[in-house]
């Protein structure tokens, strides 16, 4: 379109607009109405516009731009290609919902001044967009770290609490270490040429050793941000600490930028692929997924539970990336495209449903001031909107038809299923076992999500104060509905979506699913052929709905619709207090029991004659004790040695410089 605005320009304008909106927040930092009623909705509008522009760019040629800012030899190179566009699409539409929600969420007198929050929030958005657009290492790193910084400040909004500060610190530290890994990876990829633009990296021919080094560094670096085990420890701390829209943004969108980076490095910048990279990613992904879901089931804090669930989902995405790498390395492009589509789709789906769930916890938090599952319950009566919308998120996140999570899991399993034929017998054995574990993870996710939903929204209220809970406000509802609609759309219209995002798959792998999909109708998802595998979610939805409605109509028609209310039957027991229900701990007891070695538990049992008996269990992460504490101790030990240098005696100091001088005089020779 000559003369008209290119999509990349629109995206840049969007980034600038977000920045400007953020800065506007500083004009009246304490004016809540101005900020939440004007600025945040504006941000949402920008998000939608940006998403539409990204959608428009899908399938087109890559667009580039060079900004004047940056290093003297390396100004910011920007590039909008299909891969960036897919993730920009995700960012735009997910952030729109979150921004609308946030318009109703941030209130007076909570944590930092709203204006500062507004700046940090929109800076966060803009930097994520810049990460997606960056086309050289410097621009990427600047955007990447700005993203980390702005989200760090958002996480520590409520910095009164020690544990929130601790969470923020841990988050930023691991983000920084990850960034170092990424930088190193870029360094390796320049191949010593010293040109840090991505265009130059694409043309570098690297030896397999260096390619592998770059890949592993990137996996570690981006894995730290995405939450791959063992670099996940920040995630369950930071997500609960942040205000809910921020948790939603971090979990739904920010983690995806890490996935974006990993895809960018593995499939775009490195153009050779070695099969064992895939195995590494697959194994790490499986461990992460299993670890995440197991820990999710035993959490007693609703946001921590969701955070661990995010770890699980990232693990599944990593499994998909691993599979794609394996297929790609063996030139099985059709299957690689299938797995890659699963990855991209799961990114989109997760962005929708996890943001939705985090926002729901935000509403619950606002209504009850309570995060602990043990003190919630029965909220569906007071918060029907939130409860029913959360149900959509729960079903999607459990990976059940007909919502979004199922589509990506279905695609992933399909790609597993057709894997035999790999020219490596050992791999042939590993892949089915991996598939089995993926399925186990998906099923366990169901356990975790039923616990999440059942304990919060169903049953009796565990605390009397919950009676005062109120449903979400109009803005919040709007945001939730928007995300729920995304989840539904992704669930029932997979072919339509895949046809759009197929351009990215095609760009990375050289082949896509579009041809096959086009042969069948828009309603049918049959990536290979309808005889081999097909899924028509719309039909599933319609059939279930028809059976449901017809059943209801028939029953009402043939019989009656009479209902009487009475107290619960409960096998005739009458200790009907809320304490008779399962606690959150109790619900997950079977999992703790079956997977006991996976957890590090501290239990408190009531004594025989306790007047107020209670049972509690604290589950801790093994990785703290296996990885992090030893490293901390080592560093501490080294510092103990080194600080003896500064012992306070001037004679000793003089001796240091004397000895340095003499050693240099004796040793250093030209």
């Amino acid at each position, binding site marked *: 379109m000559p003369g008209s605005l290119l999509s990349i320009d629109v995206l840049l304008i969007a980034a600038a607009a977000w920045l400007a909106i953020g800065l506007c927040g500083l004009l009246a930092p304490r004016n809540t109405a101005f900020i939440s009623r004007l600025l945040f909705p504006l941000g949402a509008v920008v998000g939608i516009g940006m998403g539409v522009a990204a959608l428009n760019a899908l399938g087109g040629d890559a667009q580039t731009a060079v900004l004047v800012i940056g290093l003297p030899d390396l100004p910011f190179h920007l590039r909008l290609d299909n891969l960036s566009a897919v993730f920009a699409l995700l960012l735009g539409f997910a952030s729109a919902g979150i921004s609308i929600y946030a318009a109703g969420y941030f209130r007076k007198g909570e944590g930092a001044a709203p204006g500062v929050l507004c700046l940090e929030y929109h800076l966060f958005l803009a930097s994520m967009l810049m990460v997606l657009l960056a086309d050289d290492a410097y621009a990427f790193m600047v955007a990447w770290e700005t993203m980390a910084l702005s989200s760090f400040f958002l996480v520590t909004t409520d910095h009164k609490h020690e544990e929130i500060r601790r969470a923020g610190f841990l988050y930023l530290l691991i983000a920084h270490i990850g960034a170092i890994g990424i930088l190193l990876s870029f360094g390796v990829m320049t191949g010593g040429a010293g040109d840090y633009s991505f265009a130059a990296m694409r043309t570098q021919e690297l030896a397999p050793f260096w390619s592998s080094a770059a890949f592993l560094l990137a996996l570690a670096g981006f894995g730290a941000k995405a939450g791959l085990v063992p670099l996940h420890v920040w995630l369950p701390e930071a997500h609960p600490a942040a205000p809910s829209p921020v948790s939603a943004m971090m979990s739904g969108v920010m983690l995806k930028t890490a996935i974006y980076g990993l895809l960018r490095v593995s499939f775009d910048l490195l153009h050779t692929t070695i099969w064992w990279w895939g195995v590494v990613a697959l194994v790490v992904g499986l461990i992460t997924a299993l670890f995440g879901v197991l820990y999710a089931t035993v959490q007693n804090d609703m946001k921590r539970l969701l955070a661990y669930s995010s770890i699980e989902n990232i693990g599944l995405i990593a499994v998909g990336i691993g599979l794609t790498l394996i297929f790609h390395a063996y030139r099985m492009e059709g299957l690689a495209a299938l797995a890659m589509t699963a990855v991209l789709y799961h990114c989109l789906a997760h962005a929708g449903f996890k943001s939705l769930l985090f926002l729901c916890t935000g509403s619950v938090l606002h209504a009850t001031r309570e995060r602990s599952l043990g003190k919630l319950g029965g909220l569906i009566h007071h918060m029907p909107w939130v409860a029913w919308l959360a149900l959509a998120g729960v079903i999607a996140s459990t990976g059940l038809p007909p919502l979004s999570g199922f589509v990506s899991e279905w695609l992933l399993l399909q790609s597993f299923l057709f894997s035999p034929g790999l020219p490596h017998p050992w791999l042939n054995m590993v892949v089915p076992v991996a598939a089995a574990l993926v399925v186990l993870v998906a099923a366990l996710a169901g356990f975790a999500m039923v616990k999440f939903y059942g304990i919060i929204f169903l049953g009796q209220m565990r605390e009397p104060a919950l009676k005062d809970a109120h449903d979400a406000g109009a803005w919040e509802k709007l945001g939730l509905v928007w995300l729920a609609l995304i989840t539904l759309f992704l669930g029932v219209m997979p072919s339509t979506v895949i046809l759009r995002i197929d351009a990215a798959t095609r760009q990375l792998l050289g082949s896509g699913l579009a041809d096959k999909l086009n042969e069948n109708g828009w309603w049918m998802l049959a990536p290979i052929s309808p005889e081999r595998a097909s899924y028509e979610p719309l039909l599933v939805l319609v059939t279930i709905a028809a059976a449901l409605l017809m059943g209801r109509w028939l029953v009402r028609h043939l019989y009656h619709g009479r209902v009487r209310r009475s107290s619960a039957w409960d096998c005739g027991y009458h200790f009907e207090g809320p304490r008779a229900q399962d606690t959150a701990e109790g619900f997950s007891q079977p999992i703790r029991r079956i997977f006991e070695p996976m957890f590090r538990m501290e239990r408190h049992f009531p004594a025989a004659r306790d007047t107020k008996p209670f049972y509690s269990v604290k589950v801790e992460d093994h990785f703290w004790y296996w990885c992090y504490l030893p490293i901390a101790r080592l560093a501490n030990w080294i510092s103990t040695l080194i600080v003896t240098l500064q012992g306070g005696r001037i*004679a000793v100091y003089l001796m240091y410089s004397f000895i340095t001088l003499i050693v240099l*005089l*004796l040793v250093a020779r030209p």
Partner: protein
Amino acid sequence: MTTAIPFSAQLINLFAAVILLLAFAMLAQRRMLSLINLFALQGFCLFLATLVAAVTTGQVHLYYSAGLTLALKVLLLPWILHRLVRKLNVRGEVEALIKIPTTMLVGIVLVMIAFNVALPISELSQTITRGTLGIALAVVMLAFLMMITRQKAISQVVGFLSMENGLFLAATSATYGMPMVVELGIALDVLVGVIILGVFFFQIRDQFDSLDIRHMEKLKDN
């Protein structure tokens, strides 16, 4: 070099050797006032060496240097130090951190190192006093050693000044003097430094009731 060393050079070498000897003597000296006297004597030898160099080469600014040395190092600084010692009443024994015989042994090793390091340079030198550079370096190092081993603030300062003597020896005897403006600057700095130190001593004694630097080991990290 085939010719015999000229007499003037022999003289300068002699003075340099005496300066080295005095450096050793200072390293061994326990008493504060004697230490200052030795320092003055070292300064005097330095003055003589510079004077000989000035006479031999006929460079005018070396005369100035010699005069400056005489005024500062032989007269003014020892006088100030004497006054300080009296006012602050620190005549007492100077107890070294390391035993004196050990210090002397280390000193001898240092002299060997210094000569060794200076050897290639001495061979290049065209001036008549080519050996003095090694001696100057040895003096600097011995003074350094003295600063390390002493624990009274004043003796550290004397060590510091003795180091300046070594440097001056290098400057005047080995290279026949630095540009005048530099030498003036150096002299000024030394003078100001000593005056500041003098003020400092009083402050230190006010705060710590002693000039023993072992009291000043509070700032540390371990």
